[in-house]
C-alpha cells in the first residue's frame, strides 16, 4: 500500500511539472479566458440581464476545456512513455504493471483536477469582474466534476492501451459528449415505437455517462443544491466504473510485449 502511494506520488509530481512546462495548459486557459471575457463584455454595451448567458458561457467553457485537457493528459500518460522508450526503465524498477497503470491514472486525475480548478478560478474571477453572481450549487459542481474526471481519466488510459493516442482521444471525447446526446435522443424518441424506445433505453443504460457529473446547467440557472446522497451515489459509480476501465486496460497491458 505504502509503495503504491509512493509510486502515485512520484508519477503525480513529474506529471505536474510537465503540465506547468507544456504550452497546452496555458493555451487552453487563454482560450477559455477570451471566451468568458468576450461574453462578459456585452454588458459594457448596455445589454442587461446577461447573468445567465455569461454563466452559461463560463460553465460550458470550464467544462469543455477541462474535459479536453483531461483526455489529452490521460491519453499520453503511457503511450508517450512507450514512444520515448522510457517505459523500459520504468518497468525495470521493482513495480508491477498494475502499479504503473494505477500510478499513471492517479497522476492524470490529479493534474486534470488541478487544471479544472485553475480554469474555474479564472472563470469565477471573470464572473466577479462582470458582477455575475454564483450560487452555492457551484461548490457541488466543482466536487462532482472532479469525481467525473477520475472516471474519465480511467476510461482514456484504458482506451490508450487498446488504440493509438489519437484514436483514444477521439473515442473518449465521443463517449463523453455522445452519452449526453444519446440521453437527449431517448427523450425525443417517438413513444409510438416502443421497440426503438426500448433499444435506445438499453443503449443509454449501457453507455458510460460523463454527463452524470455535469451540474453546469443547474449552476447556470442557479438551482438549489442537489441532495448529497446523489453525489455519494455518483462517487460510487465513478469508482466502480473507473476501476472497471482500469482493469480492462490492465488485462491488455499485463502480458503485452513492449
Amino acid at each position: 500500500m505504502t509503495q503504491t502511494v509512493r509510486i502515485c506520488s512520484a508519477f503525480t509530481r513529474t506529471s505536474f511539472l510537465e503540465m506547468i512546462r507544456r504550452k497546452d495548459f496555458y493555451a487552453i486557459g487563454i482560450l477559455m479566458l477570451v471566451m468568458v471575457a468576450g461574453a462578459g463584455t456585452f454588458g459594457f454595451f448596455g445589454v442587461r440581464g446577461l447573468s445567465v448567458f455569461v454563466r452559461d458561457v463560463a460553465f460550458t467553457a470550464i467544462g469543455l476545456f477541462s474535459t479536453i485537457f483531461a483526455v489529452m493528459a490521460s491519453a499520453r500518460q503511457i503511450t508517450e512513455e512507450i514512444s520515448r522508450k522510457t517505459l523500459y526503465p520504468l518497468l525495470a524498477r521493482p513495480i508491477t504493471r498494475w502499479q504503473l497503470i494505477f500510478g499513471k491514472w492517479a497522476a492524470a486525475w490529479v493534474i486534470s483536477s488541478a487544471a479544472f480548478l485553475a480554469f474555474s478560478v479564472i472563470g469565477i474571477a471573470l464572473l466577479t469582474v462582470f458582477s455575475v453572481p454564483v450560487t452555492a450549487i457551484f461548490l457541488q459542481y466543482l466536487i462532482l466534476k472532479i469525481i467525473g474526471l477520475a472516471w474519465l481519466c480511467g476510461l482514456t488510459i484504458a482506451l490508450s492501451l487498446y488504440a493509438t493516442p489519437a484514436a483514444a482521444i477521439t473515442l473518449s471525447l465521443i463517449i463523453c459528449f455522445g452519452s449526453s446526446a444519446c440521453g437527449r435522443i431517448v427523450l425525443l424518441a417517438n413513444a409510438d415505437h416502443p421497440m426503438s424506445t426500448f433499444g435506445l433505453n438499453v443503449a443509454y443504460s449501457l453507455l458510460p455517462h460523463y454527463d452524470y457529473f455535469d451540474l453546469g446547467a443547474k449552476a447556470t440557472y442557479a438551482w438549489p443544491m442537489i441532495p448529497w446522497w446523489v453525489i455519494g451515489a455518483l462517487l460510487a459509480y465513478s469508482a466502480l466504473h473507473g476501476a472497471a476501465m482500469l482493469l480492462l486496460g490492465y488485462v491488455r497491458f499485463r502480458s503485452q510485449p513492449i
Partner: protein
Amino acid sequence: MLAISVDNLTVEYRRAFSKPLAAVSGLSFSVEAGEIVGFLGVNGAGKTSTIKAVMGFTPPAEGRVSVFGFEAGSIQAKRKVGFLPETAMYSPYLTPLETMNLYADLHGISGPEKKVRIIELLERVGICEKRNALNKQLSKGMLQRLGIAQALLGSPELLVLDEVSSGLDPIGRRDLRKVLNEERERGTTVFFSSHNLGEVELLCDRILIIHKGKLVVENKIEEIRDSVDSLEEYFVSVVEGHFEPTLERAA
C-alpha cells in the same frame, strides 16, 4: 552463481493474419555472477528481443529465463537489475535531477540517501553540471549518460545495457569504460550489447554472438585474441560464415 540463465528461449512477435515471427529461437546461455559479457550480433539478429526477455518485458513463447534464480520480470529479479534501454528520450520537460528523483522513488530509495546517491551518480557519469537543465537541452550523448546513471541507481547486482555506447563521443566512451570497470570491481555482473567491438574487446571477459535468433559463438575474449588480430575480424568471419545465401548476397 548464475546471474542470468536462458534456457531454450524462443521469442515470437504476433502479426495479424500471418504466422508469428520468431526473433529468437531455442537460445540457451548463462552468465556467471561477476562476469562482463558482451552480446553481439548484426542488426535484427535478436539481441534486443533477448534482452527484453531477460528483463521480462517480452514473455517467452517457449523456454525459461531467470535472473539470480528468480523468474525474469518478477519483483525479486527487478530489485537486482539495472537496465539501460537503447536510445531512450527522457521526458523533455524534466531535468536530469527530476528524472533521477522519479526513478529513485519508484525504486524505493528515499530520505537523505536519495539526494546523495543521485548527485554522486550524476557526477560519476559527468552530467552533474547539467542537472538543472531541461532534458530537451541535452545532447544525445548526455541523455545516454543520464540513462547510465538511472541504471546504476539501485546499486544493482546485474547491469543489462542495450547498445550502451550509442551516441557517446570518445570521451563519453572512456568515461563509460571507467564506470563499468568500477562496477566490475564492486562485483557487479554486466551483460551488454554493442556494435562498438573495440569497446567490447576492452571490457568483456566473454562474448556471445547471436545470428538469426540463434547463438553461434560463446567464447572467452582471451581465446579470441589468441586466434585472430581483432574482435572485428573474428566477428565478421563468424557472421559471414553463417550467412546461408552467400551467392545471393554477392549477386
